[in-house]
């Protein structure tokens, strides 16, 4: 059993990992990419200690190397879901299922934004972001799912227990796998309906649906929030002064908790949250000992 799984290898996640490691706890960091700084177009000129402007990608990569040099275990993988198992959590990635006592969400804020006409209007009116929350309403109904990666497959697996009438919409992406359901690759142009969504308009055709699930790209912290029942306010995860979400054992740090979207703030968060995770684990293990 892991003591801590950190999701995200940006400044918040890596700083937390470094401080935890130095406190004698072995965190596992899971990251899929370099996040917002990985493709930051200009250089960073306001971070302490660098006399010359630095490249965002370089800074992130150096941070990861620093943690690796300290012996931190970093996995190159995508987290698909987090499950609350009562006395621990299960972090399911593309490749494996990892049990852990605590989870630190440090995923940053990049998010696949669906700018399709009608998306905002029908959210909650037939468009859902969470199969496990809403799948049940579509028992034996005709539904669509938007996505093309492992996250979509994860949601599809759940939905296929509710109904067999599912169409996959890749929204212009390729999907070369037979999943047992029809696949529409045309880009979606608009979602149509009156009170609720009834049709999906692509650049070629119109498809009838009773409901639609969105599972594009990799799930963000907000999708994990849906899965776990975390409080989200104004697009940020709500945490208390000890970086705890409303679910005991789930912590959050960095951009996803709001405030200034700055490296210095994320690094500070990482340092602070490491302390609180350390304390939490110590108290928890005292109780069970």
């Amino acid at each position, binding site marked *: 059993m892991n003591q801590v799984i950190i999701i995200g290898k940006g400044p918040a996640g890596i700083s937390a990992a470094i401080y935890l490691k130095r406190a004698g706890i072995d965190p596992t960091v899971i990251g899929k990419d370099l996040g917002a700084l990985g493709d930051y177009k200009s250089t960073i000129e306001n971070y302490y200690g660098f006399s010359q402007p630095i490249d965002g990608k370089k800074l992130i990569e150096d941070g990861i190397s620093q943690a690796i040099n300290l012996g931190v275990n970093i996995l190159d993988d995508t987290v698909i879901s987090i499950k609350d198992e009562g006395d621990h959590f299960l972090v399911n990635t593309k490749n494996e299922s990892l049990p852990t006592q605590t989870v630190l969400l440090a995923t940053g804020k990049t998010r696949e934004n669906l700018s399709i006409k009608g998306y905002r209007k029908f959210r909650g009116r037939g468009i859902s972001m*969470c199969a496990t*929350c*809403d799948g*049940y309403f579509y028992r034996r109904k005709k539904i669509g799912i938007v996505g093309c990666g492992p996250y979509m497959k994860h949601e599809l697996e759940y939905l296929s227990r509710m109904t067999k009438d599912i169409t996959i919409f890749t929204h212009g992406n390729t999907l070369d796998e037979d999943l047992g359901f029809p696949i529409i690759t045309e880009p979606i142009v608009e979602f149509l309906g009156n009170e609720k969504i009834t049709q999906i308009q692509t650049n070629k055709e119109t498809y009838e649906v009773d409901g639609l699930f969105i599972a594009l790209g990799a799930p963000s912290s907000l999708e994990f929030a849906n*899965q776990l*029942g*975390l*409080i*989200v*306010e104004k697009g940020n995860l709500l945490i208390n002064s000890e970086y705890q979400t409303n679910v005991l054992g789930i912590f959050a740090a960095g951009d996803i908790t709001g405030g200034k979207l700055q490296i210095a703030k994320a690094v500070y968060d990482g340092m602070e949250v490491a302390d609180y995770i350390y304390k939490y684990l110590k108290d928890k293990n005292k109780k069970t000992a």
Partner: protein
Amino acid sequence: MVIHLTKENFKSIVLETEKPVLVEFWATWCSPCQRLAPILDDLAKDVHPHGVVAKLDVDDQYEIADEFGIMNIPTIILFKDGKIEDSMLGIHSKDTLKSFMGL
């Protein structure tokens, strides 16, 4: 105290009152809904006697859930003077819900 709504009491508790009534549409199989339960318990104590906090099981009381076209849970609907005032989805803090109720 959070009131559990049924076909029998829905009208009198939700529609025939001058107080704002916050209703959570939930189900036993919905794990995020379980996270909202302690928040609603707290909220109910806080807003008493100026507002009412209630919940409706969408499986048990599907006639009412269907009437309001519930397709996502948890859905939170605020009723005022027997009419829908506003609604939102997902888990929120007690403070947010309290100001949502206008209290």
